């Protein structure tokens, strides 16, 4: 339960950063926090009370003792995707800083109207 709420709170905190912080890096951090919130949510969805990792690494482990492996697999993918997006975002920030000499998003709006 608390995981659900925490994950949504993480999403909201991240979004707040994206919506309000002026620094591009902070915005990207905000995006990452959002991502993490969603990942946590996925993991929480797969959680089973007293469940263990879904790996049959020794005899006697029963499927019903395990957590749902699907969300974990999905999170793995989602993490990689989040990483890729963050990397691209950072490279764009490097470019933006080169051209604008600032990281303030309010000052980077040559394209408008």
């Amino acid at each position, binding site marked *: 339960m608390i995981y659900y709420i925490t994950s949504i709170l993480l999403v909201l905190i991240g*979004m707040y950063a*994206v*919506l*309000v912080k002026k620094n591009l890096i902070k*915005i990207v951090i905000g995006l990452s926090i959002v991502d993490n919130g969603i990942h946590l949510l996925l993991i929480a969805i797969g959680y089973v009370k007293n469940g263990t990792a879904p790996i049959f690494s020794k005899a006697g482990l029963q499927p019903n003792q395990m957590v749902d492996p699907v969300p974990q697999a999905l999170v793995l993918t989602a993490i990689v995707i989040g990483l890729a997006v963050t990397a691209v975002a950072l490279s764009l920030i490097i470019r933006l800083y080169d051209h604008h000499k600032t990281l303030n*998003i*309010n000052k*980077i*709006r*040559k*394209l*408008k*109207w």
Partner: protein
Amino acid sequence: MNSIEYILFITFIGAGLTFIVHHALPKLRDTLAILVSALDLYFVIQAISEKSKVVLSIADFHLIWKTTPYNNLFAVLIAVLGFLTILYAHDFMSSKDRLGYFYMNFLFALGGMYGIVYSQDFISLFFFWEIMTWASFLLVIYCCKDAQPIGLKYFVFSAIGAYSLLIAIVMLYSLSGNLELTNLISNFSNFSVSNQLIVVTLLLLGFGVKSAIMPLHVWAPGAYFISPSPFTALFSGALSKMGIFGIGLVLFKFAAQSGYFSYVQIILAWIGGITALLATFYAIFQTDAKKLLAYSSIGQLGYIIIGLAIGTPLSIASALFLTILHAAFKAMLFMATGAVYFRTGTTDMNSVSGLIRKMPFSFITALFGIITVSGVPPLGGFAAKWMLYESLIQSRHYFLVIVVFAASTAAFLYLYRFIFSLFLGQEEKEWEDVKEAPLLMVIPMLILSAFVLVVGVFPGLILDPISQSMNYLGNFNFNYETSVLFNEWGNQVDMQTVVNTIGAVFLIVGLIITFKGFKKTRYVSTKDIHTSGEIPQENENLTYAVDFYKPFERAIAPILKSSIDKIYTGIANNLEQAFDYLRYVYTGNGQTYAMYVVFFLSLLILFAELIFGINL
């Protein structure tokens, strides 16, 4: 292939070819265009006897093209005028460039018109309507940078017209599931009254724009003025008649089935009347011959609309008669003006004068033209106008009679000014070397002059096909021999004798005046004038033509001030302003865009059940 297919095929392929030929063999280009229009004329006439019909399946629609008496009337008009104007264009345009573009669009416009008149379904009608509109638009903007805003105005109004047509078409489709004319006509009475009214209004609006009825006329003066003269002749003579063609169709094939037909008639008739009157007033104050003719065109179409709207056999006949005559005389006038332009490089009535001796054929054409316009015997205009008065009186639209009469009288003022400014008055040094226009320009003018003369003498030539097309439009039994005019006079005297006599008198009087004018013409400077006490300024041009109707203009200045044009401009500016505010939502700040997303999300969340319903 039958004639209709030939016509469309030849015209459109020809249009493309002229463009290509222009780049490959420029010398053949004009010949090709003339050939195309001549072939068109041949096949149009062929089609009349052939009773051609084409059914073509495209997308999910059947495109149907066929000949009806009504179609043929307009097709012949287009073909004749098209042929003559292209002939005229050969010399007129010889010094211009981008002629491939010019001829291609010219032929496209022609093809579009043929398509429109032969169409028996709304898809092809709209299809060709668009082609015609675009081709004419491209010709309006042909000349120069100055033409662009004018072209844009023409375009916007055309688009409004075309799209109201389209809305009507789309409605018809949704009401009856297909767009074939015969089908729609037979289904029309099943539609609800409001649907009927909406459809008819939209159709009239659409066609009305093209025929420049007030208050949708504002595109016309500029567009007529700026387009090259050969095309102006076609534009005003034939292209604007596509509106009339459509209005006739709408009124008698559709609106007549509606219970509210009489209201439609009255409103339309009054719009026609106002158009006629106001346009005439505007025409009076123009200093440019072409603009004058442009307003005159608008006014004349007003008469035609009245005639159609009144809806009695006689009035319809008069309207159709006027349609044909207007095509002829307006083409003549534009051609004559074009000839003047061709030699002098201007159509400004204040700077050109006294060309009568230099350009006699052009003068004759212009003279025949204005005689026809003003409805003076012996030329066709007389009979047509008379029929209109007669029908108005018969149907007790006395007030409209007054309006039409006033407009006609006023028309005389500007027509007089037109011919006087250009051809009469002093001969100026400046235009000493001016010669008559080349033969290929004169021939079409003379052909048309001969035509109006012949029609004046033998109106039956025209009234026969008109009565046939009226039979097609509805059960209008119009027999010109039984009409009041011909009846009352014809019973007593030999009709032709009367007309001829009156005509002969007028002709003689006219010629006397003219030649008298000839003799009295002296070479004087425009400044050589007695001005009771006033000292003329250096740069003041004091030909008679200047401020010709100044007092009159003062009198109706208020009307001019509240020009509809200005209202439109105001609306357009306000709209643009509004658009301008709208695009400020794109602030350029990525964070703001993100905020929009979140805002939209919250909005959807808050009103989720309201928006998406509870039976998701």
